[in-house]
């Protein structure tokens, strides 16, 4: 069934959108990522104008993250205090990110920089996570299938001032690292048009030393607010949020997220991480391929303006 999107001004198949929303929703619930890094390129691919895709995706991530976070709240796997600290950083970061984005747009190479950002960050994080989880799986196999929680190393992160107790995460660390993580994720999220979960999740695990089970819920909690903020910014300045597109994606998305959260609970943390790593690397590979191989159409059209 074809449906005409009033803001995007294109006609697309409604079932295709529902399906895309559903698949991305499952992944979102499983891994605690908003799914934007998958959905935004997919929307480009089916012919949604990039500006509309980015803005609408932000709105859709609000829905799937909210649905996911409710499930996590029930299981008490959300560190609200840590989430709030990350959120403060995130809002500052996304404000900065939008300034950077507009500056790059004025220079006329924003598309390339966004793509390079994707390739570099997805590649780095994917590789790091892949080998780390592989090591963890091997270790847990040797220990007879029981994963022993490794004692976290005492590094520079623990010597900074403004310490705060994060009970849910079982951490007593300075608020500076989470704030910096929040800002960085916010900047990248605004430039790349995503929620930023795929960067935040590894940062929380490897940099802050948070337990994996808490990471997913806390990341979703922070993403809700950052993407809500982004949605409002896009809606009021660029008028590019397409509510019909958003509804179709989120109907599939919220259902998918619920299923995903339940699958995620049944899987081992190491397994979860290795699958996320493979997915991240696959998207990275596809984008890198597009940059390296000669495109079939060398020309592209952009909205006019000098």
């Amino acid at each position, binding site marked *: 069934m074809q449906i005409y999107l009033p*803001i995007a001004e294109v006609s697309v198949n409604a079932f295709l959108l529902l399906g895309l929303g559903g698949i991305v929703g499952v992944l979102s619930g499983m891994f605690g990522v908003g799914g934007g890094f998958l959905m935004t390129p997919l929307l480009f691919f089916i012919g949604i104008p990039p500006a509309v895709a980015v803005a609408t995706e932000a709105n859709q991530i609000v*829905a799937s993250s909210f649905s996911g976070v*409710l499930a996590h709240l029930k299981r008490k796997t959300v560190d609200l205090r840590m989430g709030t600290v990350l959120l403060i950083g995130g809002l500052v970061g996304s404000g900065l990110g939008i300034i950077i984005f507009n500056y790059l747009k004025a220079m006329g190479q924003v598309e390339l920089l966004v793509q390079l950002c994707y390739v570099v960050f997805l590649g780095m994080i994917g590789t790091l996570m892949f080998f780390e989880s592989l090591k963890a799986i091997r270790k847990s196999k040797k220990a007879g299938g029981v994963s022993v929680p490794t004692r976290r190393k005492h590094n520079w992160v623990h010597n900074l001032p403004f310490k705060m107790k994060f009970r849910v995460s079982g951490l007593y660390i300075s608020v500076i690292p989470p704030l910096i993580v929040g800002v960085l994720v916010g900047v990248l999220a605004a430039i790349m048009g995503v929620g930023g979960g795929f960067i935040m999740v590894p940062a929380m695990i490897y940099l802050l030393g948070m337990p994996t089970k808490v990471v997913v819920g806390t990341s979703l909690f922070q993403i809700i607010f950052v993407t809500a903020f982004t949605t409002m910014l896009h809606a009021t300045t660029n008028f590019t949020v397409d509510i019909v597109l958003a509804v179709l994606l989120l109907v599939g998305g919220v259902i998918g*997220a619920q299923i995903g959260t339940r699958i995620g609970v049944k899987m081992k943390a190491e397994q979860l991480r290795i699958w996320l790593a493979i997915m991240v690397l696959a998207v990275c590979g596809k984008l890198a391929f597009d940059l390296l191989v000669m495109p079939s159409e060398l020309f592209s059209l952009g909205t*006019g303006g000098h």
Partner: protein
Amino acid sequence: MIRLLVLFLLLAAPVNAEEIVLGLSRDQVSITATFEGSEILIFGAIKRDAPIRTDSDLGVIVTVAGPDMPVTVRKKDRRLGIWVNTESVDVDVAPTFYAVATNRPLTEILTFTEDLNTRISTQRAIRSVGATVDSAETFTEALIRIRANHGLYQTLPTGVLVQEESLFRTLIPLPANLTEGDYKAEIYLTRGGEIVDLYTTTIPVKKVGLERWLYNLAHENAFLYGLMSLSIAIAAGWGASAIFTVLRR
């Protein structure tokens, strides 16, 4: 050749007037939520006071043009191993939709000079005044090619059916990705390549119903629209969670 053409044109000078009488299958195109593209049937008759001329061939040209909008055409080139946008040309005026239907190939029924003046052919309908790149031609060609692939630019060389030298009709397909606005339909009557009559009409393409309402709200009441989008998102997220909780019990 040119001399022959001039002679031909002199002979073809309007002796008796021929006039277009037009009909449209619809006087507006409504974009609804389930809009999948459409088509317009343009038909008419040629009214004359005198018997049918036999000195020159009759040409009927129907053009339908969407609202003009500037567009930037970018070209990719290989730099440091990756494909990046290098050159770009700003096209000042490019119709968002353009269809040319004729009863015979355009060059046979329209002279070069007439085309220059009236800008009928797709190449002429696009204007890039300030192009600084040497090969600006390839950029406009690319624009036409890309839009043609999306069904937005159409050349229908035998799209107009002429019967008995006096009745004509053509069907212009409209793709689903139409831009809103007033679409200008022009019907030209030519004799020996010279235009003898022109009929112009507009076909408004408009969003209606829910599509109209949402579009207006998004532009005129953006803050409210943003809040509405967020509320729907949160309600949907909560709703799905609640339904699944019930289902699990």
